[in-house]
Each structure stands twice: as structure tokens, then as C-alpha cells.
């Protein structure tokens, strides 16, 4: 089970990022939990300056903009 967190204010790109993660995980058959973190202080705690950010199993893998599907597949299958 991969623990995924999407960091962002809840803007459109952040929602799209969460949806992309969910659909790619389903497609690859990887079990995941996806949690959205919208608290700015908590987001800052991860050290990123641009949202949306993606955290997989406690490690920041992405910051700023919608990630590419190929990258998402890489995080999920790593």
C-alpha cells in the first residue's frame, strides 16, 4: 500500500493531480491511499514552494504544476 499525499490549496490543478494519481494507480493495479493536504503550514513543512506537490511514502517527488502521466507511473511502480 502506497501512501500518497497531494499538497495544494485545492485549486484546479491540485484536483487534477489527485485524479490523475488515482486513475493511474487503478490502471496499474497499485493499491494506494490518497490524502489531500490543504493546510499551508503543513505544506510548508514539506519544503516545497510551488503547488501542487506530491509526496509518496513520505518523500517529496514533485512540486509545481500537473505531473506527467509517465512520471506518475514511475512513482507508483518504484
Amino acid at each position, binding site marked *: 500500500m502506497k501512501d500518497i499525499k497531494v*499538497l*495544494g*490549496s485545492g*485549486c*484546479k*490543478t*491540485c484536483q487534477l493531480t489527485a485524479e490523475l494519481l488515482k486513475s493511474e494507480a487503478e490502471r*496499474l*493495479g*497499485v493499491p494506494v491511499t490518497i490524502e489531500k493536504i490543504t493546510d*499551508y*503550514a503543513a*505544506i*510548508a*513543512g*514539506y*519544503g*516545497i*514552494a*510551488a*503547488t501542487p506537490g506530491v509526496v509518496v511514502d513520505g518523500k*517529496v*517527488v*514533485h*512540486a*509545481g*504544476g500537473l505531473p506527467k502521466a509517465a512520471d506518475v507511473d514511475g512513482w507508483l*511502480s*518504484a
Partner: protein
Amino acid sequence: MTTCCPAPTPRKPTDASRRYLWVGGTVAALILWLAVYQILQPLAAWAVARLPVAPDSHLAEALAFFLYDTPKVLMLLTLVVFAMGVVRSFFSAENTRRLLSGKREGVGNVAAASLGIVTPFCSCSAVPLFIGFVSAGVPLGVTFSFLIAAPMINEVALGLLFGLVGWQVAVTYLAFGLGVAIIAGFVIGRFHLDGWLQPWVREVRMGNVDLPDRRLTVPDRLRAGLDAVTDIVGKVWLWVIAGIAVGALIHGYAPAALLASIMGKDAWWSVPAAVVVGIPMYSNAAGIIPIIEALIGKGAALGTVLAFMMAVIALSLPEMIILRKVLTVKLIAVFVGVVGLGILTVGYLFNFLFVA
């Protein structure tokens, strides 16, 4: 489907051919772009001449403006957005923060405003970015220089000014926009207003991040440019066309004498009026610049319309509402006041420099 161990990604043998494909494709596209751009004007003139309207009528004038300007502007916009997309692939908000942290004021303001142009930035990232900068030791005034430059000097504004009003104006806008961001940030920094941040912001503990190092190849960067084009041009093209349509109407029909008297150089009060009207308005550069071009053609003073445009783009109500989460109202008021004054100065300077 899932493999147990991550296979090492071998350098694919197709890498070289992929590079030739992308670079070759880009060069071919640029040549085609130039060729089409050369024949736009005769093509538009030819099309209008074929239409059943009286030549030299208001309608013919408006149509000629519309048919020539629409493809021209969209082509220039595509080119500028592509170039900016490629440039931005070299930057990220995290790297910019690292470059700026601990920078002294002065040098820091110049660096922040310049980086504001090339760092990928979306207004919904404004708050995390602000917190990230301030808690990483970037001085408040330097952070403001970044936050002022980032939305004001954008590829859409530059591309459209370049396409519609000429490169001299685009370059002057770039220079003055940078000037406003640098000086306004510096002035705000001199006030030492760190106490006017929302209390919780100062207590935020910034984490350290090690983003995976991504080596982008040349095709990756060209791809980033192409993505920027589909994303941005795909979003604004309708606005541009609507703006040009309104501009075409003004071009063909609006009485020049009336406009010149309201927005011309002799009306000294028009610059402050343009700024005050522009601040609460929120629009993107795409819709507003074609109208500006038509207004200039009818005798409106360049400084006045550019001050209006800067006020609309740089100071917007939605952005202030977002920033309210990290700034006190007092600090927002100082921000608006200082930037507004900067834009005002630019307006008068422009009117002074560009004698129509």
C-alpha cells in the same frame, strides 16, 4: 504487471533519433512560421477585397484590421509562449528560492524581479511560495519584488504587445515592469514591515526538500515549450479573438477626437484615473491588449493605456484575497499603494517618452 524491482532505465537507443526529430521539427516549424508570417498582410488584403463591402468604408476597415491582426497576433503569441516555455524548463520555484535566500536587499530585488519573469508561477501557488520564500530567509521586500514581477511581466503580455504595438513598446514595458517590481519591493523592504505578516507565518518551520534531480534533455525542453503553447494559447485564443473583434470595432467606428480628449496626452488626470479604474478590474492580458492597441490607434496616450494594463494585471482583487491569508490588511494596503504609485510613474514616463 508490477515488477518487483525497479528496472534501471537504460539509455534507449532511440534517444539520438528522438533528438534529431525534435530539433529538426522545431527548425522546420520555425521556417514555416516565418514563411506564413510574411504573406499574412497580402493575404488579408486579398480576402477583404473579395468581400462584398465597399472599399474604404468603416466596415472594410474593421474587417481588414480583424483579418490581419487575428492570425498575426496568434502566431506571435505562439512563438513567444513557446520560447518562454523552453526557458522556464530551466527554472523552478524551489531553485529560485535557494538562489534568493540570504540575498541582500538591492541585489536581491533585482535578482528576484528577473527570476520572477522566468520562474514558472501560478497565482494559486502565491501563498505557499510566499511562505516558502519568507521562511527560507528571503527578505520580505525581495519576496515582493518576485511577487510583483511574476504576474505583471508574462509571456502573453509581452507577445501581444510585440505583435500589436511593436517591439519597442514590448521592450519598454519589460524594462519599466522590472523597474516597478525592483523599486516597489525595495521600498517595501525599507519599511521593515515583517511584523505586519500574519502571526502564524513567522512560526512556520520550513522543511527541507530534495526533489529528485531531473536531467532534462533537449527534446524534453522543446516538449515543455510545446506543452506551454497548447496550455496557454489553448486557454487564451478565444479572449484574443474577442479582444481583436472589439478592437476592430473601435478601429472602424469610434470617433478619434472623443477618445483623444479623454485618454490623450493632454488630459493629465487620465493616468491616475486609469490606475484607479484598473486595480479592481481583473482580466488577463490576452483580452485587454488588442483593445489597447485600437485605443492607441485612435489617439489615446500610450502611457495611460499601459498604466491601465499594468494595474489590471499586477494588482488584482482575487490575488489580494489569496494573500490576505499571509498578510495583514495594513501590509496589503502598503503593497497596493507602493505598486500603484510605481505604475503611475511609469504611465507619466511613457507618455513623456513616446510622443505619438
